[in-house]
């Protein structure tokens, strides 16, 4: 695949190194010419100097034949515009943007960025999963406004000791798997939920709160 990486900071640098090692064709665009020299010293001639939001730079980088553009600068506004220009002007099939302010993750998806990566949200989720008393964890967002969540059934939960068929789930939600200890259960309508079960559900983000009230 031909992948253009915009932003030669730590994320862009290690990402390019990794992608190159996997055999992809990579071109890194970095604004600071000195940083470009540093990167090219280590990785070979993979980086060019320029502003990735400028069409001229993207043309020089061969954007029209790029499969993916990944925008990982430290500025959200730059990552958004780079992704949008790549998509609108060069019809790049897939754009991935780093989101520095976690509040912007949803906005970026609504504005047409295919995939967003928020380091802050990612680390927050990991922390939430690592805290045992957390009973309802948002695992991942996808497709604009869908979420995968992990809900732990408590002793007092309204759904404890009830079969899935008896539970009235909010609309646009589905229980997709149950983790019971080390066992993974693919649920059917007769599966009984037990206290301590981890319910993995797919839900519309608007339904998360309702689902939390129902399951926890």
């Amino acid at each position, binding site marked *: 695949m031909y992948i253009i990486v915009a932003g030669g900071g730590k994320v862009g640098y290690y990402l390019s190194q990794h992608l190159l090692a996997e055999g992809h064709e990579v071109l890194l665009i970095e604004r600071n010419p000195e940083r470009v020299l540093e990167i090219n010293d280590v990785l070979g001639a993979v980086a060019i100097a320029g502003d990735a*939001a*400028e069409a*001229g730079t993207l043309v020089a980088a061969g954007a029209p034949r790029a499969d993916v553009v990944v925008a990982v600068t430290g*500025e*959200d506004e730059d990552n*958004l515009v780079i992704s949008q220009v790549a998509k609108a*002007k060069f019809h790049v099939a897939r754009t991935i943007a780093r989101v520095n302010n976690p509040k912007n993750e949803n*906005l970026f998806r609504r504005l047409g960025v295919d995939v967003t990566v928020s380091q802050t949200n990612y680390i927050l989720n990991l922390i939430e999963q690592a805290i045992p008393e957390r009973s309802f964890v948002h695992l991942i967002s996808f497709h604009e406004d869908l979420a995968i969540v992990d809900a732990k059934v408590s002793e007092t939960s309204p759904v404890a000791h009830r079969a899935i068929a008896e539970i009235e789930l909010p609309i646009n939600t589905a229980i997709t798997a149950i983790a019971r200890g080390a066992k993974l259960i693919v649920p059917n309508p007769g599966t009984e939920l037990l206290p301590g079960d981890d319910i993995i559900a797919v839900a519309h983000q608007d339904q998360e709160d309702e689902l939390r009230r129902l399951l926890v």
Partner: protein
Amino acid sequence: MNAVIMGCGRVGARVAGLLDNTGNFVSVVDTDSRAFRRLPAGFGGETIIGTGIDEDVLRRAGIETADAFIAVTNGDNRNIMAAQVARLIFEVPEVICRIYDPVREDTYRRLGLTTVCPTTTISAIILDQVMRAVSEQGQSRGGAG
């Protein structure tokens, strides 16, 4: 009319002053409090310190009840992002966005933003003046020779 202006540079401060003078309510947002010194004496609107790409800052500036949002910071990308937030999230009826880069301006105009590109506008004015001056001079020189 209520207007929110992001960026209190020469243009932002001037537009804010003009709107304020003509009986509108104006909030001006800038990351640098010193920028507000550019506002004319007796400016009756509000000043908010912060970045206009942050929804909370925009809310503080009253974007939820704004009739117009004007993005005139020095950063094209910042203006573009803020204008899209104003339009998409806050549904401000009139959103105007300054973009210096003519190519980017073209792209976002096609995507539906109301854009102003000083580069193309001023270049056209200058070119027009130069061409007119040259043709007038050419005539007088030609007439003399």
